[in-house]
C-alpha cells in the first residue's frame, strides 16, 4: 500500500512519514506541492492521499480537481490549519473524502488511515 503525503512543509512531511512508518506503512511518497503530487499520483499506485490545502504552485483544491478527474474514488484526506465548519463543508462538497485539522496527533492520523483502507493499521 502506498500513501501519498502532500505538504509544502518538509517538517510536516517528515513527521507524517515517520508516523506512517511506525504504523507499518513503508511505502510513503512525499510531494511538496500539488503539481509534484499529481505527477506522483500518475506514476504510482496510490491507496490514500493526505494533502495540505494551502500550498504554492498548485493548492490542495486544484490537486483534488485533477485527482478526481483521473480517479473519482481514491481516498483524499484534506489536512488543514483551518477547521471552520464552512471550510470543511465546502471541501467535502468539492470531493474531499475526509479531513484532518492541524495540529494533529499520530493517533488521529492512524484513525483516518484505518478508516479509509481495508487492512487494519498499527
Amino acid at each position, binding site marked *: 500500500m502506498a500513501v501519498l503525503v502532500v505538504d509544502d512543509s518538509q*517538517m510536516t512531511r517528515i513527521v507524517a512519514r515517520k508516523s506512517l512508518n511506525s504504523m507499518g506503512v513503508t511505502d510513503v511518497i512525499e510531494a511538496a506541492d500539488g503539481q509534484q503530487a499529481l505527477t506522483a499520483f500518475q506514476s504510482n499506485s496510490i491507496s490514500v492521499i493526505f494533502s495540505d490545502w494551502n*500550498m504554492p504552485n498548485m493548492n490542495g483544491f486544484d490537486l483534488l480537481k485533477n485527482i478526481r478527474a483521473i480517479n473519482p474514488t481514491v481516498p483524499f484526506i484534506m489536512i488543514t490549519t483551518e*477547521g471552520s465548519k464552512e471550510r470543511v463543508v465546502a471541501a467535502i462538497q468539492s470531493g474531499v473524502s475526509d479531513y484532518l485539522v492541524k495540529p494533529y496527533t499520530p493517533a488521529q492520523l492512524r484513525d483516518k488511515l484505518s478508516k479509509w483502507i481495508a487492512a487494519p493499521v498499527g
Partner: protein
Amino acid sequence: MSTALNTMASATVQIVNPIITATLQVFETMLGCTATRKEIASGHDKIPWNQVTAVIGLSGLATGSICLSMPRRTAFSAVHRMIDERVTEVNPLVCDTVGEFANVIAGKAKDSIKDMQLELGLPNVIAGETYAIQFPTRSYPMYVTFTSEIGPFIIAFGFALEQ
C-alpha cells in the same frame, strides 16, 4: 487610550486572546511542550525579535501579519522534539519548522475571529541578527513573550481594518 487609538488598535486587540490560545495548544499538541505566557506589550520599535522569525500575512476585512520569533536554540530544540534530529545551524529545515508552527498558530487563531473574514498567506521566514518587519500603517503592533521547556519565544502581530 484615546478614541482614535482605540479604533486603530481594535483589529489587533481582537486577536490577542485567539493567538495566545492557539499558541499554547499548538505547542502542547505538536511538541508535547507546555508554553507559558509572560508579557503582553505594544510598540513596533520595542519588539524583541529573535534570530529566526516566521511571518504569516493575513488579509480580509483587516490586513496584517502574525509573526513567530524564536532564538536559535529554541528553534533547534523544536526540530529535535519534532523529528529526533539534532541541528546546530539555521538551515532550511529549521526555517521550515518555525514557518509551519507560525502557519498552524495563525490558522487556529483565524478560526476564532471569523468576522474578520481573513485568508492566510504562505509563511515567509527571516533568519539573522538584525532586521525589521513592517506592519501595516495604523496597525498598532503588539507582542507576547512566552517561556517553554524548549526555550523562550515571542509572537508579534499587527492588524489594521481595511478602510
